[in-house]
């Protein structure tokens, strides 16, 4: 039984192809059901975002599973094989686990460490649970990936710091004003950049957004586009600067419109309430020397871009710590998986020994006084358990699947274990779990 991942991502496929392979449009549930009906694997989870479409499955044979899933991907989306195959990647077992853990940590994202992906991975697993295609293996795998995402978020700086200019402006405002609720924002100029930054501020709950432009009609149009903002004529600029907390300048003016001397006169009646000016105009709207005024915090587009670069560099420096967490969790998952592989043999072995013990006990039963029968039963059970303890532990802790296979094979032969019959028994607890969760094994009818 193998874990198999087949998919495309922003690293391997252009956006046109990713759009065509998107599962969200028709719903993950429909896709999972369709995949289930094809019987391409025992379990399946589909992670589909705008940057990736990845199918995680559990199958008996990697080569067969790979082509079955590639077929499914092409047929389901109506895309020609030839146009998909060159962009498709597939990894199996531990490497598939490592890939999912890196995805959940944000290590494989377009913007390193972005936080949305963990939520998307969780949604993918939830969809598979409700479509009843996630079984014990993928459940364990995905729960481990959530833990990886959480650990990377809390233990490293991979997701810290703003990595877009407008988000950088928001996080700077928060460092100056704390809570942005109740603050007012003044946008000078009716351009696109000013609108975008104002929208970000609005989403943080600022009290008021006012747009000032030389042409009031432009200001009104931008205010309407932002929603809940108001427009004001140019000659109210003095008054508005007196009350605003955050000023975004984005005019197309060829020269400076806010000089240092002018801002000094504006600051006096403010009694040194801080004023945060974001100058995103090119050429600049604010005289750079205005940044020397005590309570004026002046940032231009280059400053914001520099902080974005700094944050990206800091994130990059955290990659190795995040990778270490991924490696640690892959190792843990591997151990769980290997120990799980040994379970059928262990169960068969125990049943074999217990059967022998019982038959001997039955033969003796008539010759034993009734009061000692219980004690003999206890003692013999204890002996069997003690005898089997060491081999069980050795088998579970074997380092690689091949060694476990060899050991299991040897045990099966030496003790003439009936693995086929016992294997169903060994699966029993697992199946009970599946039934409890109302998750049926992902098998095509009649395939076994």
């Amino acid at each position: 039984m193998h874990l198999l991942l087949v998919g495309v991502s922003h690293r391997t496929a252009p956006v046109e192809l990713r759009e065509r392979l998107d599962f969200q449009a028709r719903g993950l549930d429909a896709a999972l059901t369709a995949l289930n009906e094809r019987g391409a694997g025992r379990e399946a989870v589909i992670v589909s975002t705008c940057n990736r479409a990845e199918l995680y499955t559990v199958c008996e044979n990697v080569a067969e599973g790979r082509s079955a899933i590639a077929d499914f991907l092409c047929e389901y989306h109506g895309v020609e094989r030839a146009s998909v195959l060159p962009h498709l990647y597939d990894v199996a077992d531990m490497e598939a686990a490592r890939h999912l853990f890196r995805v959940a940590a944000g290590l494989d994202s377009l913007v390193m460490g972005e936080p949305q992906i963990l939520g998307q991975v969780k949604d993918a697993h939830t969809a598979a649970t409700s479509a009843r295609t996630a079984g014990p293996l993928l459940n364990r795998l995905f729960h481990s990936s959530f833990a990886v995402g959480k650990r990377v978020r809390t233990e490293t700086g991979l997701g810290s710091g703003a990595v877009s200019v407008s988000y950088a402006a928001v996080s700077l405002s928060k460092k100056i004003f704390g809570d942005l609720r109740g603050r007012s924002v003044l946008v000078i100029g009716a351009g696109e950049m000013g609108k975008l930054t104002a929208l970000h501020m609005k989403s943080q709950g600022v009290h008021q957004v006012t747009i000032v432009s030389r042409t009031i009609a432009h200001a009104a149009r931008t205010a309407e586009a932002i929603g809940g903002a108001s427009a004001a004529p140019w000659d109210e600029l003095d008054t508005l600067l007196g009350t605003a907390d955050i000023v975004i300048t984005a005019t197309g003016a060829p020269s400076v419109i806010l000089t240092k001397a002018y801002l000094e006169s504006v600051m006096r009646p403010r009694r040194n309430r801080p004023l945060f000016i974001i100058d995103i105009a090119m050429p600049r709207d604010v005289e750079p020397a205005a940044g020397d005024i005590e309570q004026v915090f002046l940032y231009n587009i280059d400053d914001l871009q520099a902080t974005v670069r700094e944050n990206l560099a800091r994130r990059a420096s955290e990659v190795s710590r995040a990778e270490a967490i991924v490696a640690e969790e892959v190792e843990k998952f591997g151990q769980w998986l290997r120990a799980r592989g040994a379970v059928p043999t262990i169960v068969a072995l125990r049943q074999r020994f217990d059967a022998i013990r019982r038959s001997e006990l039955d033969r003796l039963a008539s010759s034993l006084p009734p009061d000692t029968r219980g004690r003999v039963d206890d003692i013999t059970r204890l002996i069997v358990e003690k005898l089997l303890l060491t081999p069980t532990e050795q088998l579970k802790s074997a380092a690689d699947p091949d060694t476990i296979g060899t050991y299991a094979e040897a045990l099966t032969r030496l003790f003439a274990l009936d693995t086929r019959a016992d294997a169903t028994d060994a699966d029993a607890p697992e199946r009970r779990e599946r039934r409890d969760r109302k998750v049926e094994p992902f098998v095509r009818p009649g395939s076994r």
Partner: protein
Amino acid sequence: MHSIPLALYVAALAAYVVHFARRQAEVGRAATTLLVAGALAHTFVVGMQTMEVSHVPVTSASSAISTFVLLLVLAYLFTEMTTEERTMGAFILPLVVALQLIPALHPMPEERADILRGPLFGIHVASLLFAYASFALACVIGIIYVLQFKELKAKHFGFFYARLPALDVLDTMNQRAIMVGWICLTVGLVAGFIWAGQVQGSDPRVQAMSLEDPKIFVALICWVVYSFEVFAARRIGWGGRRAAYLSAVGFAIVLLNFLPISYFLTNSHNF
């Protein structure tokens, strides 16, 4: 006896510093727990002394410092619990540890002269100690403000930027601490003047109670500095960073009055 709270404060300091650097929530909780334990041990010590000498130990310089440290820790714990902000701990604990070293290493006998009785004396000492604790907090908040201000002005977002609270939050906290401190300082000074006027006797220390005594003189300077900060500074545009510097200067004068002057120079307050 003061070394048990001292040891707990040192442990709390270490935890706060680690929490500040690594920002792990468990370490932060451990730091608060250690500090609460330190405050409990310290309360116990001060309580035992109170039982022993049947008044709150404030008349010798070292025990006054000990009581002051306890008030400072309690004031800090109050701010931490109301603002959910642990970063200040790494800044306030060094002061706590440094001051607590004095009663731990150099305890002085606590004896109360007969004239030091009555409610006015109690109000005088309690208000002033509380005022000083508030000023200590304001000073630390001011230092944090300046650190954050510099990073924002320099457009360099380093170690402190991510960890320290927002400027405006710090400014508001500073104003509140200064206001509370100023009220206590005023009450304490007024109570002291009335008490000195009432007290009778030929005790040389009472004779020395005049504006020429360094301790009384410096206390009045403190009052002038903080009055300026509360009532005038912001009107003439001394908000933000200047207010923060002023808090630091004010507390430097307080410390000067509290330590060297109390130990060596005053003639009126060495009971």
